[in-house]
């Protein structure tokens, strides 16, 4: 990977600011968990900007705060302190219902595991977020079917998750994440449970979609092979940004 490590605690991303196109803007984010009498500092003052259309990996060892940071950006969790703006919204001020609506409208998720609703078929899982938006059946099918074909699941649309391999399940999750054309797709270690070949295929797919649809991808990983494919890598260590780098041409 080409690029430069800044090694600073504050990363300005592509030098984008809120006013000139940053999709995500984090300022002094801290997150503390209480485990009994013990306080665990998961994030310690993270500053980060992500511009629209970026393909960014959050890299770092287990416990470095990758998932916590993704959860905060995806409004699945709230920071203990700091400010988070995503697509122009201060998401720390959203109540639970508004947060759910925000996720539905703005964010696509790909989780490490247990991505799909077990009782729904691949097609139904893929169109689930469209259903939540109230999109009519015909329109849902028209949106999702080409995407499923595109990711090579044309013959598996009627299969339930337990009838799909791990890689196929992740591809369904990618289609579901893309179906609503969100501003941002967050993926928490999407390749962690996949073999290297499947993992590479999934990454290729995400990269293609990023380039083609200009969708912003932010994903966490500690897999060197995945990190190598990212256009931008933000390294986390002990809840702090430990550096950032970009591949050539990004």
């Amino acid at each position, binding site marked *: 990977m080409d690029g430069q490590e800044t090694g600073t605690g504050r990363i300005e991303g592509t030098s984008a600011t809120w006013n000139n196109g940053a999709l995500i803007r984090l300022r002094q984010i801290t997150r503390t968990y209480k485990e009994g009498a013990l306080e665990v500092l998961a994030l310690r003052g993270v500053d980060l900007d992500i511009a629209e259309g970026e393909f960014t990996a959050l890299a770092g060892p287990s416990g470095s705060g990758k998932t916590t940071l993704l959860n905060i950006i995806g409004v*699945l*969790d709230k920071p203990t302190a700091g400010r988070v703006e995503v697509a122009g919204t201060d998401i720390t001020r959203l109540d639970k219902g508004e947060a759910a609506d925000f996720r539905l409208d703005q964010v696509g998720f790909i989780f490490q595991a*247990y991505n799909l609703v077990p009782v*729904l078929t691949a097609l139904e899982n893929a169109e*689930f977020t469209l259903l939540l938006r109230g999109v009519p059946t015909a329109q849902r099918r028209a949106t999702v079917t080409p995407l499923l074909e595109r990711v090579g699941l044309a013959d598996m649309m009627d299969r339930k998750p337990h009838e799909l391999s791990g890689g196929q399940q992740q591809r369904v999750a990618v289609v579901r994440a893309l179906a609503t054309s969100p501003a941002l797709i967050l993926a928490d270690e999407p390749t962690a449970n996949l073999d290297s070949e499947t993992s590479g295929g999934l990454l290729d797919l995400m990269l293609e979609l990023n380039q083609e649809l200009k969708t912003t991808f932010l994903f966490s990983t500690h897999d060197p092979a995945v990190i190598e494919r990212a256009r931008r890598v933000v390294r986390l260590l002990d809840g702090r940004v430990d550096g950032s780098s970009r591949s050539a041409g990004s």
Partner: protein
Amino acid sequence: MLWRMAWRNLWRHRTRTLIMTSAVAFSYGLCLFSMGIGDDGHQQMLDQAVEGAGGDVLVHADGYWDSKSGDLVIQEGGAIVSAVQEVPGVDAAIPRMIINGLVSSASGTRPLLLQGIDTDREPALRDFAEDVDYGAYLTSSDRDDPLILGVVIVEKLDLELGDRVVLTATQPDGEITRALFHLTGIIETGFQEVDEMVGLTTLEAAQNAVAAGGMLTQVGVVMDEGLVSDTVAARIRSALGSRGGDLEVLTWQEAVPDMVGFIEVDDAFLYIYLVVIFAIVAFAIANTFLMAVMERVREFGLLNALGLRGRGVAGVLLTETFLMTALAMAIGFILGYAGHLAASHWGIPLSMYGVEDMELSGVDFASLVMRSKIIPLKWVGASVLVALVTLGSALYPAWRASRFEPAEAMRFYE
């Protein structure tokens, strides 16, 4: 798709769902069946109690019902019967002369409750002719002093058809009198109280026996179907006007409060029994759903993460409960209705369950054959209640499911 998802979720744990569905279905079916049997039994008891009392509404000389005193009579019997018959809602006004006395034969003396009845009007309430087992009914006898006695009195007095007996009773004016009757018929009702105590004769013969021509002891009222006895009693009081001053007008409920109390207590026990059953079912469902919620924390977290609001997540669980309830109630209704049809067809004799020699307000429980009766409003009410209890039992689990923080829920098993 949410309905489809809920339906499929139900069958993820087939055995568990079948057990829960069966519990609700059997409880609901049992509830309907019990109500059907209970309502029919109560109706039979009420009908018999009304027959035993003498009508839906009773008119006597004031104070008669409590004292049963022979001097308390309705003086202008014919006029009162006519006035009552004209009251709206009165189907029949039945005149009676009731005499408390002693009946004697060569073999002994027994107490007797002799009812002088109008054979044309009495069948509007009860047809004693059907109960005559030996001899002839009052209308078939050409004698002017016919007497029908219960089989037990006949045996104790060692009588045969055609034998003469002497009635000793008090006239309305207080004089003791004796009158001769001929035994023309014997009835065997199975009611100990009737077979041992009751005698029947014509109204005229009874009036003649105690020198009470034109007088009556009781006017029994049979009202039109669907009316409330209180309403009809009030109309009769109003119609009698000034003549009502010396009369008492009682509803059958006032006349036989024991039976009314018994039915109320029996109903209360049935409701308590059903409440206990449904409380158990509700807790079982709540517990099972709560368990299901804890098993599916991550799934609910996923749904919430994808943008389904908390109330939507609760809605998924409640939809599952609704579907299970609908299925269980459909099965329960079939079971309950099948039970109703079976009980209506074959009947359940109370004597089969060890009920012997139990009488209350003229009702012989041992002779009752319980069938089933549907009171649509009660079935609908019970069904709504069962649905609410079952759905209500899932409210807390659904609320729990709606409260999960998605980030915590998603790492629940990590």
